[in-house]
């Protein structure tokens, strides 16, 4: 029974992290799939979201500024707004230039964000990071929430404590996963509407032939900036959820610019860029492969360790993570060359009247 529960919780955590990556992939899909904007600063936007959320919602802390203890929803909304605002600035500067410049600028801004989070120690606690970030649902069990309104209207502290003690320890986990899945569903519905709307068709036109779209009177630069901001807003949201999931964030390891950004790219390309369902599918698939490969590689290292004693297997153990990265990199190259449209290729909306 315990083992079954363990599998269930592992499955939930796959869904949780996979879901957060799915949100990132959806955000990237707006930028790359819809508008053809090459963003390699995904980790930066996610970090902005995560830190904004963390600073606004955590309890007062001597280690970092803020700890305003605001409601979780306000933190998440602020995360989205700030991430979008940064994208707006970048967009205004770089979007009229060719995609390569945007790529350089976004990887740059991700680095700058990381530098800022690392060096502004009094604001963010620097490399040591922020901890005790409230996680949706689980946060109800924190004293500061159940002793304040609106929870205190229903019952007093002792009543809530007794209630939470009566629940299994992992009660919040399915709720949290469900919340993330609901967020994905909501974002998916909105993005599908956007894709099928005149706005989405215009985005496709701009991506496919910029000059023709311009000649048809479309404001190419403005539309592109809109898409870039929209994508960044979704990434900020994903960052806020990521902070909730981890509860402890730091600038270097949590938001390793290359790893996180790169994984999201592999997810979108594998799933099918331009297709929202493809982005979600790719995210869950690649995340399952990514975390599954950890098990496989670790198990094979143990097998190697059992059958030979020629060399020290400890070296392999510390380096297994790099092997995973190498394999996922090769996977990207393979997909790019052989299946550039991904598992679920983009389907254009039918012309009006032909549906």
């Amino acid at each position, binding site marked *: 029974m315990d083992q079954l529960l363990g599998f269930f919780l592992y499955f939930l955590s796959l869904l949780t992290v996979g879901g957060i990556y799915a949100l990132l992939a959806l955000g990237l899909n707006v930028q790359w799939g819809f508008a*053809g904007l*090459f963003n*390699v600063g995904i980790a930066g936007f996610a970090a902005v979201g995560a830190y904004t959320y963390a600073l606004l919602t955590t309890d007062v802390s001597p280690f970092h500024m803020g700890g305003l203890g605001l409601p979780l929803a306000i933190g998440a909304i602020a995360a989205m707004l700030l991430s979008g605002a940064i994208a707006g600035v970048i967009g205004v*500067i*770089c979007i009229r*230039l*060719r*995609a*390569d*410049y945007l*790529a*350089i*600028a976004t*990887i*740059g*801004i991700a*680095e*700058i964000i990381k*530098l800022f989070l*690392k*060096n502004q120690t009094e604001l963010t606690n620097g490399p040591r990071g922020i901890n005790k970030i409230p996680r949706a649902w689980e946060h109800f069990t924190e004293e500061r929430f159940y002793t304040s309104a609106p929870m205190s209207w229903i019952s007093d502290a002792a009543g809530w404590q007794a209630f939470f003690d009566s629940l299994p320890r992992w009660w919040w986990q399915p709720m949290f996963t469900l919340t993330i899945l609901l967020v994905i569903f909501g974002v998916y519905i909105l993005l599908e509407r956007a894709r099928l709307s005149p706005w989405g068709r215009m985005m496709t036109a701009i991506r496919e032939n910029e000059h023709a779209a311009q000649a048809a009177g479309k404001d190419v630069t403005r539309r592109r900036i809109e898409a870039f901001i929209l994508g960044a807003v979704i990434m900020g949201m994903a960052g806020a959820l990521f902070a909730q999931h981890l509860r402890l964030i730091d600038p270097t390891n949590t938001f390793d610019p*290359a*790893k996180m950004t*790169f994984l999201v*790219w592999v997810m979108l*390309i594998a799933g099918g860029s331009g297709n929202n369902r493809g982005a979600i599918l790719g995210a869950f698939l690649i995340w399952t492969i990514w975390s599954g490969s950890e098990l496989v590689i670790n198990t094979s290292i143990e097998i190697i360790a059992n059958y030979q004693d020629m060399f020290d297997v400890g*070296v392999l153990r*510390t*380096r297994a993570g*790099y*092997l995973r*990265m*190498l394999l996922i*990199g*090769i996977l*990207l*190259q393979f997909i*790019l*060359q052989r299946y*550039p449209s991904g598992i679920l290729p983009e389907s254009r909306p039918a012309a009006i009247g032909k549906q």
Partner: protein
Amino acid sequence: MWASFGFEFVNFYFIPGLVLGCIYALGAIGITLTFGILRFANFAHGEVMMTGAYFTWTISTLAGLWLGWSLHPLVAAIPAIFAAIGILMLIDRYFYKPFRNAPTIMVVMASFGMMLVVRSTVQFIWGPNQLTFVKGIDKPNEAVRQFTADLDLMILVPNKHFWIMAGTVIIMLCFTYLLERTRIGKAMRAVSDSPDLARVTGIDVEAVVRATWVVGGFCAVAAGVFLAMDIQFLETTMGFRMLLPMFAAAILGGIGRPFGAVFGGLIIGLAEELSAYPWIGDAPFISPGYKTGVAFTIMIIMLIVRPSGLFKGRTF
């Protein structure tokens, strides 16, 4: 004057800035050549620098173990350059060439992927820890110190900095000769100016592409080894840390302008080091933690004001 201001400024800010600038300049040559000739921003370039430095370390370590020789890093760098160029050719053949006729953004994506593939390979083979490249403290050159002290302008330059600056100048002279005097160099410039026109006039574009990787790889490994000589250790993120300043240098000098890239590299290197000088008051003008930010800011300003760079490079 010298004692109160110049000594500290020149020795601790200006000369290190110049040395850093030389390293950026060599790296930016490769970036600007691939951008100009193959028309894509090569994100894997920093990793080539890093790999070259790791090769150099391995060769000099093996030479020490097996033959008992203690090779100077610059000697060990020669076989490392060949190895790195070979790897670049393989990468180009299998990962970039399939996209030659596709939208350029596909190659950018492929190069972004290669950045991680190369880095994780190096991390897997050599491990994630720092390696000591050169042991000990390199003392300032005694002859120069003595000579300039007699003139009341004491300059402290370690030998490694002389090697780096002299090496950069020599490589630059060879590079100038290559571009200005040789057939392949002229062909490279022609392809950079207009690939279609170059193809029509019968230039073998694939040969030019190979030459680009040879020159870019040579300069990248030189830059990587110089950087390792300067900081005296190796780590797997050293290439990635150089990437942004090198892009900034290439954009500052103008894309497709190798000499612009060198100039840009020197400017970026100096700007990064001089930004930490206490221009106002006693504290560093900009906290050293934000050095990378200086390069990025220069790049962004350039993109707003003059995307073609100082030397009228290409804009896409």
